[in-house]
Structure formats: C-alpha cells, structure tokens
C-alpha cells in the first residue's frame, strides 16, 4: 500500500474499504440479476477500478459536483447514493430517479450534486467544466470532478474541455480511469503517450500518474487536487492506472485480454489489497470486516426486494415534457 498513506485518518480508510466492498457486492448482485434476466439493458461494472471511483468521489465534499460515467457505480455510492435508487434504475422502474426514462447507470441526483452522463464518451467533460465555471463565477468554493476512461480520453471534448478549464483556472478535476482496455482495444491502439497524465503539460496544469488500485493513494492525490482547485489554483488531471478485471459489459467474456496482464492485476485487486492493509495495520480486525460485509449484504437484500416489488412506469410517461416550464424548479443547489 502507498508509502505516504500516513496522513489519512483511519476512519477514512475504513470508509474507503466499506465503500469499495459495497460497490463490489452491489455490482455482484446486479450481475446476478442480469443473469436472471431481470435487468433492462446492458451492465458495465467497475471490478478492478473501484479504488479509483470510490476514493475520488469520497475526496469530495457534499457541495461538490460529481460526474460519474459508465463504470463508476462506486462513485455514486461514495457520494451518498442508495443501493435502492441504483437498482430501481437498472430494473427500469417507474419510481426511479428518471421515471424509467434513462438506462442503468445514467441518472442524476440533485440532492447529492451528482450529474449523470450521456453515453457519448467525453461529452460530460465540457459540461463539468461549465459547472466549474459557474461555481467560480458564483464564488461557491466548490469543485466539479469528472471521470473519463483512457479510451474516452481520445475524444475531442477531452481536449476542448480541459483546455478551457485551464485557461479559466477553474475548480475542475479530471480523473482518467486507465483500466488498460477500451472495450476490446488495448492501450497501444488507443494512444502512444507514455502516460496520459503527460497531456496535462499541454494544458499548463498539473498531471499525476498514480496506482488506481490503491484507494488510499487515490484518495490522497484527489483530495490534494480538489483542495488545490477549491483554493482557486485551477484544474488537475489525474491518471489512475488499474485494470478492468471483467469484460467490457456483462455479455463480454474478454477473450482478447492479455493473460499475463490479467494475472498481474489479479494480485492487485483493490478490494483484497485494501482489506489486507487494514488487517495488517490493525485498523480493522476480521470480525469488523465480517460485520461490515454483513451489514452491506442486508442492505442489498432489502434494496433488491424493494426494487423488484416497485411498479413499472406508466406508459403515458413516454409523453413526458421535453420542455421545462417557467415554474420549474431550476438549478442544482436551489
């Protein structure tokens, strides 16, 4: 585990573990539901990148804005989203946050300052930058944090968004989840830079390349970048290197993945790593780990039951308004 993890308090480390575990267990349940044919649409899970998604989101304050993407269930959970809301979404239920209009992981939550993504990779970067601009203009002392895969980092919006954020010195942090594959495509067909964090220099902002399987290291680095951004010093780019331990989505067996690489990263499983660290350093004992696991399992049971029982949308809702009225509750943070 990271050398410099000393300055993170134990409760934070425990919370990181709890959330990584919660993410793993929730996704396992979603996969199980998928195999039972209960899920509508596709399922993309974060196995192997949970340390990155969880720790990044946990480094935010409540008022900060989170922009998770398709593999970032851990970030939703770390920002305070409930398992129930997530399951309702995956089951396409009528009482979910989008009233059934949006798919699995694509949803926003005003009460938590989470803004859901559209599928077009990278397209949320300029939007998150715009939120950061708005926060700066409104002197709100808060930060916008967005994720992008190493694959998605090659889309034009990455460039336009990051450059604009840098010019305006906005409170914006971009996390590259470099899990070494974009669907079936290995990094050597995606980019040729040694590190993607090397791109930061081209925008005149700091870039970090860190071990994305190390939750404590991620937490530390992101926290630093977030507080730096909050204090008006501008954006940062953080590349978290990890590995996609499963297929691109639940229907992909990932036959194309490099066997050696997979082996190497099985040893770096973020959950096991964090658990070992906590046990070894007597921050948690086996009993506490079991208790945490038990608590999460119960929550998942409970949420699953509720979600499955929940009603489907009313067909009439398809005709839902495409325009806001002038009496609509407007912005986030209102």
């Amino acid at each position, binding site marked *: 585990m990271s050398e410099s993890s000393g300055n993170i308090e134990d409760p934070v480390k425990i919370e990181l573990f709890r959330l990584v575990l919660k993410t793993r267990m929730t996704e396992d349940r979603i996969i199980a539901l998928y195999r039972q044919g209960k899920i509508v649409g596709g399922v993309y899970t974060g196995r192997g990148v949970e340390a990155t998604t969880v720790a990044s989101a946990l480094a935010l304050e409540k008022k900060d804005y989170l922009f998770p993407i398709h593999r970032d269930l851990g970030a939703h959970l770390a920002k305070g989203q409930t398992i129930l809301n997530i399951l309702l979404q995956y089951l396409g239920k009528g009482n979910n946050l989008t009233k059934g209009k949006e798919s699995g992981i694509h949803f926003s939550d005003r009460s938590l300052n989470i803004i859901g993504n559209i599928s077009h990779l990278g397209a949320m970067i300029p939007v998150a*930058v*715009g939120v950061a601009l708005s926060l700066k203009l409104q002197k709100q002392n808060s930060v916008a944090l967005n994720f992008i895969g190493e694959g998605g980092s090659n889309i034009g919006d990455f460039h336009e968004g990051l450059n604009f954020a840098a010019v305006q010195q906005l409170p914006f942090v971009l996390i590259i989840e470099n899990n070494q594959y974009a669907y079936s495509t290995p990094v050597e067909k995606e980019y040729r830079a040694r590190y993607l964090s090397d791109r930061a220099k081209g925008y005149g902002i700091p870039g970090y390349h860190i071990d994305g399987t190390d939750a404590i290291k991620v937490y530390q680095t992101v926290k630093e970048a977030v507080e730096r951004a909050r204090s008006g010093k501008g954006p940062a780019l953080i590349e978290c290197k990890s590995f996609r331990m499963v297929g691109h989505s639940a229907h992909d067996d990932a036959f194309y993945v490099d066997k050696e690489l997979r082996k190497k990263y099985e040893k770096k499983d973020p959950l096991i790593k964090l658990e070992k660290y906590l046990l070894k350093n007597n921050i948690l004992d086996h009993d506490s780990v079991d208790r945490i696991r038990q608590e999460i399992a119960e929550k998942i049971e409970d949420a699953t039951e509720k979600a499955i029982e929940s009603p489907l949308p009313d067909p009439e809702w398809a005709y839902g308004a495409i325009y806001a009225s002038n009496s609509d509750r407007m912005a986030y943070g209102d």
Partner: protein
Amino acid sequence: MATSTYLEAINQALFEEMERDESVFLLGEDIGIYGGAFKVTKGLYKAFGGDRVIDTPISESAIIGSAIGAAITGLRPVAEMQFADFITVGFNQLVANAATLYYRHNIPVPMVVRAPSGGGIRGGPFHSRNPEAWFFHQPGLKIVAPATARDAKGLLKSSIRDNNPVIYFEHKYLYRRVKEELPKEEIVVPLGKANISREGDDVTVITYGAMVFECLDAAKKLFEEHDISAQVIDLRTLQPLDMELILQSVQKTSRVVIVHEASLSGGIGAEIAARISEKAFEYLDAPVKRIASLDTPTPFSPILENEFMPNAEKIYNAILEIMKF
C-alpha cells in the same frame, strides 16, 4: 423612440437582460474587448467585465458544453457561435446533451446559443448556412429566427428568460440593413407566436428570417400588378411552431407558399407543408409550394449565390403559379 438596427436591437437585449438578471452571462470567441466578429456584443465587456463576457478559446463544443454546465447550476449563459456554420462542431452537445436533459433527468437547461446565420453576404459555403432544420428534428430545443429589429430584441429577451435551450438564429444579412424605431419601453416577444407581416386573403405565404422581406416585396408587387392579396406570415419562432396561426390563415386563403433560405430538401418547410397537407387537407385549393435555396452548398461567386438563393422574383413567380392552379 430611437432608431435601432437589427444588430443594435440584439445588443440592447443582451445589455438589458444582463442588467436585469445577474445570472445572465455571455461566452464565445472574440466577444469581449473586440465586441464579436460582427460587433453584436460591443460595449458589453466594458459594462459588465470579463466575468460576464467571457472570451473563449476556439472550441465550439466546449462553449456549448460549458454553457450547459453553467445553465444547470443556476446561471443563464448566452453562447455565441462566431458563425452559425460552426455550430456543427458543437452539434453533439446540443442534440445529445442540452436537448435531452429535461426529458431524461428533469433538469432544466436555460441557455441560449446565438448563431449568426444566412447568406447573401458572399460568405461562400461555410459562412452562409441556415442550419435550423437539423435542430428542428431534435426534440427538446427551441429555435428562434427574427426578421425585424423589434422581434430580434423581444425574442432574444424571451429566449434568455426561457428555461430551455434556445438556438437563436440572427440573420447576418439583416444586421445593418434592417432599421426600426424601437419604443423606450421594454419589448418582450413571446416564443412560439408567429406574426402576420402583411394581411391578405388570396394566398398564405409562410416564411422567416431574411426571406420575410423578399416575400413582402413579392406580395407588394403581386398586389400592384395582379391584385393578388397575399398574407405573409413571419414565423419568428420555428420550434415550437405556431401551427394555430398557420392553419387559420390556410383555412382563409386555401393556397400556400412556404419560403425559406435553407436548402429545400428536409428543410422546415417540408414539415410545415406536411402538417398543412394533413391538417388542412380539405381547405387546400392548390398544392403547397415550397421555395428555398438549391440542394447544394452555398456557392461563393455572387452570380452563383444569387442563383442559389430564393428572392422576391422567384417568390412572385411561385405565388402566381399557385394562384393560377
């Protein structure tokens, strides 16, 4: 009352809205000290400072994308495209992101994209576009295209106050050619309401933007030379369309000519013609005729551009043809 050009009217609307509402701010290329490529934002940087009149890098997708972000967190951004043509670079942000957020996530996106559009200025293929039809086929956007200084001002104010993404097409050809007396009192023209620019009984001419004036010229000449009384409707807002007014007029005249400067095929005229043919089928005494630019890019050389675009003469001929049907 003071005389204002179409361009000045836009500038006034921006000024007044920024004064009225602190959450309104502008972003775009060269809109600050320079006042924009066409000087539409002249003086606003000086009046409101760099935090509310933001010069951006050349990044249309980031301009539109960040306007979305600002809009959903309490501000009312007005983004400028230097030319409407360049909106294609930020297309995805508009159609995938801005247009759908309310339906999908119940998040209002109160923003305006100002897009100087239109030909007749020898701009060639990439400085003459009228791209409104693309956005018409994307549910969730509103589209505005004023022809007069009064409407330019009043519709921009409504666009800024609207809680939805509005694309505001300001016609470059009209910037300095249209001049009107504008009242001192505030002008607010509601979105979604067409205007009858000329009353008439024999034929309905539906149009918008710079073509309003070509239609009025044609109508005048038809009246003088053939005693044909054409009712000219200036749509003003293209989305939502004021079908009520259109259908009323068609029921009265039973003949329709639709005119727009965008290329013919797949233009907004097609949708209007289709709706009229469906909803006023029994009233029609003649086929609905459409007059529009050729189905080609905008050619550069003046001779070619003149051939490419509709004008009063072509409209005159079309109306005559429809009247003889």
